């Protein structure tokens, strides 16, 4: 068990809870800060448990990565984003499901999953963010009823920056391969 990771996990979760209103008032902060922080909270909590994540087989690890993908897809739906702001039950579900199904699944499944699957999902994550950025920047109507069109455009540009950032970050190992080949 790693106390530092537990404390960090709790810290990320507390930030999301204590600053819920200011974070959710802005779609960029909501989608690109609060939701990732919740996932990071779950991720840190699970890797804080130590050896647990090494005891699973590759098929289960692959399945866990897919659990994270479906959870991300669910919470990226504009309808889900709107629902969290008007329905307390959905809001609570968000605070529980993202740490567990995104952060926790990635923490357990990442290391032991098939490297081709990881690469495939990373490529798809970048392209999905690109599509989302185009959609949010150019949609003439509000995609989320809870946010202004101008905020929607900002979110679109933030998606684009995130996609570029991830593409760069995930490309670096290709030019300077790490010693641990599981980190594809």
């Amino acid at each position, binding site marked *: 068990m790693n106390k530092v990771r537990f404390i960090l996990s709790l810290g990320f979760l507390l930030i999301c809870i204590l600053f819920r209103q200011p974070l959710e008032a802005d779609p960029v902060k909501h989608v690109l800060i609060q939701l990732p922080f919740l996932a990071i909270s779950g991720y840190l909590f699970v890797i804080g448990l130590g050896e647990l994540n090494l005891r699973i087989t*590759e098929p289960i690890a692959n399945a866990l990565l897919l659990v994270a993908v479906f959870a991300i897809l669910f919470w990226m739906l504009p309808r889900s984003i709107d629902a969290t702001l008007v329905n307390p039950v959905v809001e609570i579900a968000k605070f529980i499901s993202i740490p567990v199904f995104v952060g926790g699944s990635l923490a357990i499944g990442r290391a032991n999953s098939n490297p081709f699957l990881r690469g495939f999902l990373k490529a798809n994550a970048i392209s999905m963010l690109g599509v989302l950025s185009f959609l949010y920047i150019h949609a003439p109507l509000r995609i989320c*009823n809870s946010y202004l069109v101008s905020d929607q455009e900002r979110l679109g540009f933030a998606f684009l920056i995130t996609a570029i950032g991830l593409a760069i970050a995930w490309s670096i190992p290709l030019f300077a391969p790490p010693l641990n080949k599981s980190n594809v």
Partner: protein
Amino acid sequence: MRSFIQYLLPSCVVIILGGGALLAATDGFRAFTEESARRLHVAENQPIMPLLELEDMKGDKLMLGQEPYSAGKITLVEFIYTSCPIICQAAGSDYARLRDRLTQAGLSGQARLISVSFDPVQDTPRQMREYAENHGATGDIWTIARIFPPDLDLMKRSFGLRVIPDDMGGYQHNAAIHLLDKSGRLSNIFNIEAVDEVFQAVQRML
């Protein structure tokens, strides 16, 4: 072969369950946004709207809801605020086109158009008359009205209207034309520019 199936089985289970969850969350991949979900829900369930009392641009009471308050007419409702610089002005122009289509088809006695203000504090009868004059709403088939403040939340909830303040002292809201049948059921929601579509829906309903 067996090991291959064992390898894929957990992922296949997740794909089936995850796909099912997404299917349920989007009403069968038909509604990805709150607005499309609202329209789908209305088209499939045709909910009865509550009785709402409005004040029109002449200062008269106007009822919105079930018979006898529907005046035996199909009611078309759009939500506006009169100081809106863009969307509500466009909505007014589209409503004028719809009014003309209905009048030309001889249906003006069987349908009524109401532009309802969700900003009753700012939109006084005088403000509403100005908006009406700008768009040619005379009050015969098309009138402008405002909700009374105590009923504002009820109106928003029942119609699924979402209004948020913008950065310029106004609002952004889900602009649409709401079609209520004579019994007060909300039967369909259309884009404000879908004049032909609304006209055809009114014809089908008669």
